[in-house]
């Protein structure tokens, strides 16, 4: 089977499962949350897996998308779906503002992105902006609350995200990004516009987080700034991505499915041991599978999508 068809099959299977599973198990938000992390992990994957930038402050785009969507509904009276797109646009605008961070690299970039996300959080939660963002009082979208519709839109956003990663896996642009990740000087000497390609990947990643944040806001409808700028969202998305394996389509899917599954299994059945078990598992995986779960398949000569 050609790789493009294999990738398309993965995409269809994942989306079909996301549509079918709530019919089998009524906790729809569980699967919504799963899709949120599937999409965010792919967003992290686009940035880290293809360019080598680890965005610890990725939640800044997510929160911006949530607020962009909410303000589009509350202030511009847009219907929810266009408002979700507005959330994505808001995150892209933030990405443009923060694009100079790409001048940094490694731990410096990670820390700077973290600080930037916190700065955005404090601006949004600032009491002086209560008239605009409702400051610390949070958002209520009770008027447009529709969990079923927002669930379906989330399936769409996840589909777009998976398709974007599949494109990068298959396209010249994806190879260019990986070349930049491995050796930016050589890539530049080969005629690659390093800055432009990095910024495009950064904005694509921001767009994904913004759209996901917008749909998340629609789904939960009542939230505080702390909920959508929660740093654990970034950390979980990064851990899931690293666990599955970066630079692939299936790695993050595998990471989210296994770790998010375990998160819920342990969290629901053995909450008292949750942090011990989960922490130990992650330490073991980092020690023995630094390349992620996908590296197990690669070691056996299997070409992971």
């Amino acid at each position: 089977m050609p790789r493009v068809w294999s990738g398309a099959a993965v995409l269809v299977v994942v989306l079909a499962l996301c549509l079918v599973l709530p019919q089998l198990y009524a906790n729809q938000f569980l699967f919504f949350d799963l899709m949120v992390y599937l999409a965010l992990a792919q967003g992290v994957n686009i940035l880290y897996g293809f360019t080598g930038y680890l965005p610890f402050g990725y939640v800044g785009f997510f929160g911006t998308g949530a607020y962009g969507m909410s303000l589009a509904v509350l202030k511009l009276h847009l219907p929810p779906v266009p408002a979700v797109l507005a959330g994505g646009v808001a995150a892209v605008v933030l990405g443009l503002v923060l694009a100079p961070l790409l001048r940094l690299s490694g731990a410096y970039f990670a820390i700077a992105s973290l600080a930037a996300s916190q700065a955005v959080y404090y601006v949004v939660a600032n009491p002086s902006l209560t008239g605009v963002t409702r400051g610390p009082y949070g958002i209520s979208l009770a008027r447009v609350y529709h969990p079923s519709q927002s669930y379906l839109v989330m399936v769409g956003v996840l589909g777009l995200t998976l398709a974007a990663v599949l494109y990068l896996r298959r396209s010249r642009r994806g190879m260019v990004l990986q070349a930049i990740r491995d050796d930016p000087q050589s890539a530049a000497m080969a005629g690659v516009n390093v800055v432009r390609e990095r910024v495009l990947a950064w904005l694509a990643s921001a767009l994904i987080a913004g759209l996901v944040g917008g749909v998340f806001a629609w789904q939960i409808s009542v939230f505080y700034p702390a909920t959508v700028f929660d740093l654990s969202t970034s950390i979980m998305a990064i851990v899931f991505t690293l666990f599955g394996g970066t630079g692939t389509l299936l790695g993050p899917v595998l990471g989210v499915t296994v770790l998010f599954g375990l998160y819920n299994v342990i969290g629901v059945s053995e909450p008292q041991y949750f942090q011990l078990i989960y922490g130990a598992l992650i330490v073991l995986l980092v020690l023995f599978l630094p390349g992620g779960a996908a590296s197990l398949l690669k070691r056996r000569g299997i070409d992971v999508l």
Partner: protein
Amino acid sequence: MRMRRLIGWRMAAGAALLGMGALVAGCGTSAAPTAKAPTQITVGTLYAGSGAFATSSLPEYQGLQFWAQQVNAKGGAFVKAYNKRIKVKIVAYNDQSSATTATTLYTQLITQNKVNLLVADFGSVLTSVAVPIAREHKTVLFDITGTGASFFTPNNKYIVLTSLPTSGVWPESLAGFLLHKGIKRVAILYLTNDFDQSQATTLASRLKAGGVTPVYDHGVPTSTSSYNVLIHAMAQSKPDAVIELGYPNNDIAFLQALASSGQHFNMVFTVFPGQLLSLLQKNVGAKGLAYTYTYPTPPLLAYNKVNYGLSLSQFTKAFQAQTHTGVNFLTIAGYNAGLVIQKTLDTAKSLRQSDLRQAVAGFSGKIFTLDGRFRINSEGAQVGETLPVGQLVPTTKGLQMVVVYPAKVKTGSSVYPAP
């Protein structure tokens, strides 16, 4: 090569399916729908076993558990719909102080465990996500301490606040006290979250209406833990009264910084000494809390007209004997939520959620518990008790709470200015 790729894809897809299967299988099995006479009444709730809200959530959960044990020791709660006592079972999950995890778990309680009654976790952040879910599933949410004003709207009849008024009305008595004392120079330092800022806004507004404009009115992030610079900045405005509105950790950090700063103010007010006195005293010391003003709540404030459930002294004795831990306001709030549920079961004509909510409206204003009068408005917000102002006065036996305002509940006079 092509076959190898196919196998790779199949293996990966299989793993993904297995993972999703584990996800489904691990989340418990569906409970059977409520039969005509259920063998037990299930009360679903969440608690924060770790994270920012753990110190407040766990005592509240402990209070609810204590109520269930008390009721079950008598053969269960009386359920009017079946004219018999039925045992109560609490189904609880740990949300780890995460609002997103809480969203999944609230849905789990409703859709999978099919609990008869739903109780929110501590505070507004962890309650906020339950509000639309409960409304969507037409399930009454018994909200213990989620006091965000936005939860209570005319078109949401599926919420009942059991223990505290909405935070915006908390400082009514405090503003009255400041104006009554003729204190003109007031500094307000608050956290920029719904709970604290709504108090700060009300306080500033009431003071301005009384002709007093705060000389310092400043919000800081909820994560603030260093108050030294802020205290010195406030001191520059020469306030007579300093009002610090925070969460327990902030109050502790503020009072510690004040003690070490060398600054002295005639009046200092913080929120949580009145709710978690032992925690504050352990971290700040009796000296650091001396003459501090606060909102006193049970057990520091005793309501004598109790006509439902244990009185404060009975509760304190029984709770300590059973759990070997101290009583604070949050354990009382958890127990009080149990009492409201008990009365609901005692009076509802069926276990349908609409009947449960109607039952609550029916006994609103008629029961007096150790937490005072239980009374809700048409939106489900608690309006039974306003919070008075108290002062912690040092005595030979330790700190004593003296209620100083309003006059109808006053137990002594304030020591002002503080020595």
